[in-house]
């Protein structure tokens, strides 16, 4: 067994996992609060990537420092994605708070189709090269063939975002309100929590992490088009469910399991069935742990 090969596959799997994690975190947060598979989450990620591309390219024409452009474009993406997130929640989900859950799901699918075509028509259907490229970091030189600068940044951001979210949820007032809302919406309202605000906040934070993912991942892949959100969204959804949907550490763990499975599956078996490995591991895990790896088993009341 070739150890270096194993190690590079492992690192590749970690990168892939952290990419999924950045998207899955927002997914799982939204799910945790309102139990909605937010199909439009992938589209928020895409809009984040597009916003940063547009702002970044516009700024680049003024000849600014590339790192400054990167930061500004990143901020713009986060602001805009968050704005889209809360607007979508307000328009497409809030009126349906009392409706059957499937209706909300279809509304989310409709929103996802709308956003894809909105970007397609307002911008372009072609793949565009992503202009925000960071200079390579010197200390990564020796392992560059295994981990590039963007891969490293993605890994770090995932860790930071996960820690911040955990702190937010565990230790702040807002976090407490979120947990209360997720347990019982009516009860939370009764004790004076503004449930609508809590849900808006959740969408805001979830969308902001998706935007961060959009920028970092796009600069890793190097090109984007209007359709990138759909596949990324489905994968992140799988990762979130794998880890136990609604659980923040679960989403990260699920993403890593998924990324590593795909990487080793491709490396040692065949990339023909790369997606199939992801789905098979999902089915296997759910057979043995029906609520995901770190999901809480909910006792059903009769």
């Amino acid at each position, binding site marked *: 067994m070739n150890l270096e*090969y194993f190690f590079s*596959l492992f690192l590749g799997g970690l990168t892939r996992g952290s990419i999924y994690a950045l998207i899955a975190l927002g997914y799982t947060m939204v799910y945790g609060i309102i139990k909605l598979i937010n199909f439009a989450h992938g589209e928020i990620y895409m809009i984040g990537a597009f916003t940063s591309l547009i702002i970044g390219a516009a700024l680049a024409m003024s000849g600014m420092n590339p790192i400054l452009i990167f930061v500004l474009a990143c901020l713009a993406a986060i602001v805009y994605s968050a704005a889209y997130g809360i607007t979508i929640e307000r328009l497409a989900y809030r009126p349906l708070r009392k409706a059957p859950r499937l209706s909300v799901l279809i509304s989310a699918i409709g929103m996802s189709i709308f956003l894809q075509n909105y970007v397609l028509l307002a911008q372009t259907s072609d793949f565009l090269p992503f202009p925000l490229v960071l200079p390579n970091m010197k200390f990564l030189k020796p392992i*560059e063939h295994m981990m590039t600068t963007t891969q490293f940044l993605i890994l770090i951001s995932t860790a930071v975002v996960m820690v911040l979210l955990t702190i937010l949820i565990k230790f702040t007032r807002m976090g407490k309100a979120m947990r209360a809302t997720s347990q019982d919406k009516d009860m939370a309202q009764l004790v004076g929590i503004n449930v609508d605000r809590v849900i808006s906040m959740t969408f805001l934070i979830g969308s902001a992490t998706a935007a961060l993912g959009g920028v970092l991942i796009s600069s890793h892949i*190097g090109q984007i088009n209007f359709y990138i959100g759909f596949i990324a969204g489905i994968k992140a959804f799988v990762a979130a469910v794998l880890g136990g949907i609604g659980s923040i550490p679960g989403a990260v763990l699920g993403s890593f399991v998924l990324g590593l499975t795909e990487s080793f599956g*491709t*490396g040692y078996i065949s*990339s023909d069935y790369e997606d199939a490995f992801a789905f098979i591991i999902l089915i296997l895990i759910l057979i043995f742990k029906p609520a995901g790896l770190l999901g809480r088993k909910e006792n059903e009341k009769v």
Partner: protein
Amino acid sequence: MKKILAFLLISLVAFSAFAAGQGEGGTIRIGVAGAHSGDLASYGIPSIKAAELVVDMYNANGGVLGRQVELVIEDDVCKPEVATNTAAKLVGDEVVAVIGHICSGATKAALGIYKDENIITISPSATNPPLTKSGEYPNFLRTIAPDDAQADVEVSFAVDTLGLKKIAVLHDKGDYGKGFAEFCKAQIEAKSGVEVVLYEGIQVGAVDYSAIINKIGNSGADGVIYGGYHPEASKLVSQMKKKNMDIPFLSDDGVKDPTFIKVAGEYSEGVYATGPVDTSSNPMAIKAVEDHKAKYGEEPGAFFLNAYAATIAVLNAIEKAGSTDYEAVSAALRSEYVETPLGKISFDEKGDAIGVGFAVYQVQNGEYVELK
């Protein structure tokens, strides 16, 4: 009871045969079908423009056989299930011939209908070999060379010119990419001293290709052949270069597109791709491109010249045959040589264009340069 039912059914069906009688209109109708919306629209729209330009030119000179030519444009979004509906619509509109379809899968589905109705179908872009080679579709012709011819050029270049010994063959699992990769694999295996060290499909739209790139590295390949379109190719090439993997990357017609160079930027330098022999210096091609710029204000897109040639070939054959009769037009297409932007072409018995071939290109200083 059953008998009555069967009788009713048959009489209904027979009645419908009367209803669909043949009408002889004042104009000659030519269908244009392909992906005109959706994610593959950029491959289909240029063929509409090409057909429009040719038809305008003919109509300005008095039409064909003294009749004006009319285009019937229908979208199939490159999906087989939609293509059959599109084909039914074109048949209902009594077209004489169809320029299209664009994707091989949609073409196969639609041909099932055109064949029964004896409608000539000329595709500017469907390269799947069985379309002509199987002999199943006598009404099908194309102005582009089939995939196996392309794979032939690609593999002989890789083995004989570049001297590669261990080749990794990748594809995008699509009907075009995988078909091409299969032919490449078969051609390589037929040669001695060369082996396919890796043959795999990659996941289109994946967020990261490091696993498959590591695998290429581990397989010890000294060159990569990729079958598919340019978006995935540019991701693969740039991630390979970022990982300091510097082995020749060869690809196909789907990558021989200026967009590839612009998207992949500096990483595209040195990439090889096969594509139709460059005919941009052909006077007709220059005129066609100029006309396009004058009418639509932009450079023409993919398969523009192929569609232009297909439209000319059909109209010319109708003129030479002296009628729109299927047999006569079909024979004229195969016997007459016609001057097109792709050069002087005709069609062989199976429907492949004679005089259309492939060449190998390389990206040099941000441009595709034909290697002689």
